[in-house]
């Protein structure tokens, strides 16, 4: 996706980047353990944990009974007792049984104990639609977590970030909810995992998120900023390409981390372009897209030539496979929205 990667000879899939991030972390740190439903023998329904049990044994990657609150709740205990659990929720909507554990404990334990008990837990959640999934398998649930103080919320949009950000999530002393865009699992890019490993382990990667967050401009432009994250970044990029044909130069910002949030990058791009569109799959009401929109006008009000507009899923339950195309933000809907940005002003 970035200019430098185009020259690489190896291609790497999003799934294998995630898988390698976990195995590298497990290799480096014996306290990293992976568990969840079907993550052991089967390697996960998306095969993201494939081979981990074979390589590291059943004490390091194992199946649990089928109970998500149990998975999250025992992860709390594991983390209290020195482990770094990486847990998988099989699908977005199946994390809901664990929300009490996540909201009331995982998010709050450090604060409750004045930092004496930190919970370095990674909660991996495959999310979003566009894969023809049936009900409960396509929710974009990031807002629930992003609204909950004490959680970090990451979502990679590229193969490189799948690796780098998952490594960082596992190394974080804070709990991280790690949203993996399902529709990207099978995507491939020209990336070399050993280079990514070297970049990460050097400790000097310019792509570290840290406490300040580190949004990346994935396409430069001058007329309008398209702000996005996760599965919508590629749609945003396509829309930017398309609108270039109409003579509009769109800059695309990939947030990568929702919490923490990169206000500096947001402000920089919007002040530069003077217009902004926020794109996200989730239903729009009280969403992360609402937050981004609110922040832009709070911080860049006098730079704005038109209101900040949102392109999001509708405020409806995620539709059945045959209708999902009408729900999801697509290139056309972004283009329509770009058209509304009062260019004549």
């Amino acid at each position, binding site marked *: 996706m970035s200019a430098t990667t185009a020259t690489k000879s190896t291609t790497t899939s999003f799934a294998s980047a995630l898988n390698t991030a976990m195995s590298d972390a497990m290799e480096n740190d014996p306290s990293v353990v992976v568990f969840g439903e079907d993550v052991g023998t089967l390697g996960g329904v998306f095969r993201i944990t494939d081979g981990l049990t074979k390589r590291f044994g059943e004490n390091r990657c194992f199946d649990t009974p089928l109970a998500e609150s149990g998975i999250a709740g025992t992860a709390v205990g594991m983390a209290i007792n020195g482990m770094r659990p990486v847990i998988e929720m099989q699908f977005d909507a199946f994390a809901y049984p664990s929300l009490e554990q996540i909201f009331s404990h995982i998010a709050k334990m450090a604060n409750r104990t004045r930092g004496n008990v930190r919970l370095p837990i990674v909660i991996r959640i495959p999310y979003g639609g566009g894969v023809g999934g049936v009900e409960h398998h396509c929710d974009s649930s990031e807002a629930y977590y992003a609204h909950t103080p004490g959680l970090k919320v990451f979502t990679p949009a590229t193969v490189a970030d799948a690796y780098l950000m998952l490594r960082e999530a596992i190394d974080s002393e804070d709990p991280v909810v790690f949203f993996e865009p399902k529709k990207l699992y099978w995507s491939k890019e020209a990336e070399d995992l050993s280079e990514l490993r070297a970049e990460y382990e050097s400790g000097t990667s310019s792509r570290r998120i840290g406490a300040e967050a580190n949004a990346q401009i994935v396409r430069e432009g001058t007329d309008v900023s398209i702000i996005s994250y996760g599965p919508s970044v590629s749609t945003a990029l396509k829309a930017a390409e398309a609108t270039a044909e109409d003579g509009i130069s769109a800059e695309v910002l990939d947030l990568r981390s929702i919490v923490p949030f990169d206000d500096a990058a947001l402000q920089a791009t919007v002040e530069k372009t003077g217009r902004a569109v926020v794109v996200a799959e989730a239903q729009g009401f009280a969403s992360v897209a609402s937050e981004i929109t609110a922040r832009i006008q709070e911080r860049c009000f006098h730079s704005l030539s038109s209101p900040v507009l949102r392109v999001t899923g509708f405020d409806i339950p995620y*539709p059945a496979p045959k209708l999902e195309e*009408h729900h999801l933000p697509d290139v056309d*809907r972004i283009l329509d929205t770009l058209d509304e940005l009062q260019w004549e002003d």
Partner: protein
Amino acid sequence: MTESTTPPPSPEIQAGSEDVTVPMGASTPEPGHQKAEQASRILEASRSFGITPEQYMLPAQQQIRMLDPEGNLISESEQGTGPGHEYPIPEDDVLLKAYEGLVAGRRINDQNYALVRQGRLAVYPSSHGQEACQVGAALGLGTQDWMFPTYRDTVSVITRGVDPLEVMVSFRGDWHCGYNPHDYKVSAMSTPLTTQLLHAVGVAHAAKLRGEDTVVLAMCGDGATSEGDFHEALNFAAVFEVPVVFFVQNNGYAISVPLSSQSAAPSLAHKAIGYGMAGEQVDGNDMVAVLATLRRAVHLARENSTPLLLEATTYRMQAHTNADDDTRYRDSEEVEQWKRKDPLKRMRTFLTNKGLLDEATEERISAKAEEIAASLRQAMTTEPKGDPLELFEHVYAEPTAQLHEQRDQLADELTRAEEGGHA
């Protein structure tokens, strides 16, 4: 002081009869620790069978089974039945009807499997091998009763009478649920595991509050029993004494996870006593035993307004869904072993031996199954044009102002798309 502060005097907990030695609970209740009336019902029931309440609530010492793997009727003494665990063999017409269901059920599974391979169905979780449970579940209920099925219970749902075309809507991806649950007293097939058990309890509770005669069959798999909602559902049902039969199809796996990683209990039926209800385990590939146990459970639930837990031991012969690769977690030898216990074959042998199945009957039954299969294929050829604007209709009884706006936006896009605009 309202009633609940002074619970009814606790029942005499030392059983009266000589040969009964195990008391109701672990000790005499203390003041403020009295048990609900439920306990006295269990006590009465156990007393009438001359066994202890614990013996009544625990499953029989072996799972209930009437047919051996070849389909021969086994002797009564080896069926696992006994006082408090008595399961008379159902009448001939019921047995024949069940066989019809088995043949149709197998045909439905195979037809849908074929449709998936042809790419005409998006997904199908097959119950191939579990048809005795599927058919038993549907035949055990009266028309006034409710069924709460899962994604795997297509055969139950169709056997219960739901139009196959309507059932397929969800697997084809048109809409989430294709039938009107109220038309059939069959809830939407549930995906979030065991959540539906609580709905089942609520339906039964509502019926009880109105004094209606409604038994509810709540279905789930072995893996699903690990979820918290399983626990809450059984407990609510026992505390409120509502007639729900919890029917667990233990097919040995939750996707790739074997039962041994799911539970360390002697059997899933052993969970019942922890809620104060009776549990039983049945050979889920024995159509006769499934019918016998389910019918009795439904009967007891109806008569005594009491919940029961029935675990049927069975096997999923195919992968979890078409998206699954079961060779990753079980070997074909294990699958082969279960082929020998095929519920359909066993029932055919039994009925033939019993003289209930002649060629003409077989033909009639096959023809009927073919009809259903044809209707499934038919359902898949008609590609219904769903109206995208309908998406906004069913979120609230009346669309909100916000949804009106969003609907208008989509309508506009659709119009422009037809006119060739960039939406």
